[in-house]
């Protein structure tokens, strides 16, 4: 349960380090995000006089959702299968819950940036949901179950010929992941230009512990999507039993898979530019169509 929040800042740090190396710099240490969070928890806050209870409450809810989702997805073993919360529609809509409150808190303070950040975020979220549901749906038809753990178990036992739809669904899922976690080409997580911000624009007003919670939640969301990508589409390495040796091995394989995906995201961020906003729906519809093709192949 606490594995996702604990590991999440590490992978954020790894992405930044790789990007720095591509820019021929040394970059900050990969443990810098932990120091950031520590520092933020020790700072005071300044909150706008126009903010309402939604602004005060949203970070807690957003972080709580990422903790719950992190506990419900297959990480390194299927032993902790939580049958009641691991339905993929539940995961999709819980994440939609956190986006809903983040968008509301962006609107809450009455600044110009927060408003249009919320507008863009909701536009992208609305269009991403289609591709997200469809890519996971393709897998659940393969597995005859919508439970995430069953999906991993089934995909692990597929033959090579049946694997094509999984690849298609994976490409669609990667596009969805980039959109939901605010990476290139959808959003630049390191930008300073408010006109180009989507996720960052909504959190410009947060400071101190609330900012720490939101940054942590964003990092956890990134790790959640990475784990979903790694463990649903390439689930080899998940253990079924609960012995110390197998757990260590499974954890190692999990970290390795997630590391590969992280490197991929970092390389992508260093290679292409952020797309113009109105080119993004085309990309999201491509994700939708790829998943539909995957479903068609399965049936």
């Amino acid at each position: 349960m606490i594995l996702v929040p604990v590991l999440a800042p590490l992978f954020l740090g790894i992405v930044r380090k790789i990007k720095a190396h591509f820019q021929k710099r040394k970059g900050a240490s990969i443990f810098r995000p932990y120091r950031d969070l520590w520092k933020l928890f020790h700072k005071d806050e300044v909150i706008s006089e126009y903010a309402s209870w939604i602004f005060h409450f949203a970070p807690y809810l957003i972080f709580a959702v990422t903790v719950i989702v992190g506990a419900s997805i297959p990480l390194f073993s299927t032993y902790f299968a939580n049958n009641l919360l691991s339905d993929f529609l539940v995961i999709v809509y819980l994440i939609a819950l956190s986006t809903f409150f983040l968008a509301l808190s962006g609107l809450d303070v009455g600044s110009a940036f927060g408003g249009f950040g919320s507008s863009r975020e909701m536009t992208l979220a609305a269009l991403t949901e289609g591709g997200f549901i469809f890519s996971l749906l393709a897998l659940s038809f393969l597995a005859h179950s919508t439970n995430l753990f069953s999906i991993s178990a089934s995909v692990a036992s597929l033959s090579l010929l049946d694997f094509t739809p999984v690849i298609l669904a994976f490409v669609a899922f990667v596009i969805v992941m980039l959109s939901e976690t605010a990476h290139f080409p959808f959003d630049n997580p390191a930008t300073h230009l408010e006109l180009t911000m989507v996720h960052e624009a909504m959190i410009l007003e947060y400071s101190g512990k609330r900012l720490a919670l939101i940054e942590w939640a964003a990092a956890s969301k990134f790790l959640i999507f990475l784990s979903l990508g790694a463990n649903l589409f390439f689930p080899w390495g998940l253990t079924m039993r609960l012995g110390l040796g197998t757990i260590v091995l499974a954890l190692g394989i999990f970290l390795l898979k997630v590391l590969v995906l992280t490197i991929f995201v970092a390389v992508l961020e260093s290679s292409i530019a952020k797309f113009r906003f109105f080119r993004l729906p085309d990309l999201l519809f491509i994700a939708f169509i790829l998943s539909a093709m995957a479903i068609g192949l399965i049936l």
Partner: protein
Amino acid sequence: MLKLYSKIFSTSKTVIPTEDLCCDGELELMGKELQKKIQKLFNGSLAIREVDAGSTNACEHELTALGNSYYDVERFGVSFVASPRHADMLMVTGPVSRNMREALVKTYEATPDPKIVVAVGDDAIDGGIFKGSYAVLDGVDKVIPVDFQIPGDPPSPKTIICHLLKILGAIEERNNQKEK
């Protein structure tokens, strides 16, 4: 895309090593020393918000150069942020023109405690070459309380990094480690 990758991998790294940065003698730190507690907090994770209070942009150019692949200030845990609410340190440049006075005060109030204010450049310290003009207020400390000052017109990125590291107490640490 392949051309981009081949160019990236064939370029050599030119980051200036930390030892070359601050080995020229004692650095005069203009301002009070930071409390040890705050130093420990910010050493390794500092968020800077840069405020241009009517400057000639010379200092801005030098500050921009801080992030390039030669000086690479990010390896010390320092980064620039967009909103003063996210910032720990305000770097103010320029002699504070009358029109920017209110904006500077608002930025100061929007930054949460504990915070550090650094006046970068001779203009920000006491007005510099614009001292006495009717359009400027002669230095940042006339508007908001300033903790540290970095002299120079404009200060070179090397100077700025050295001062930053000294403020954060990072240089003493390295010297202590080297001596050991």
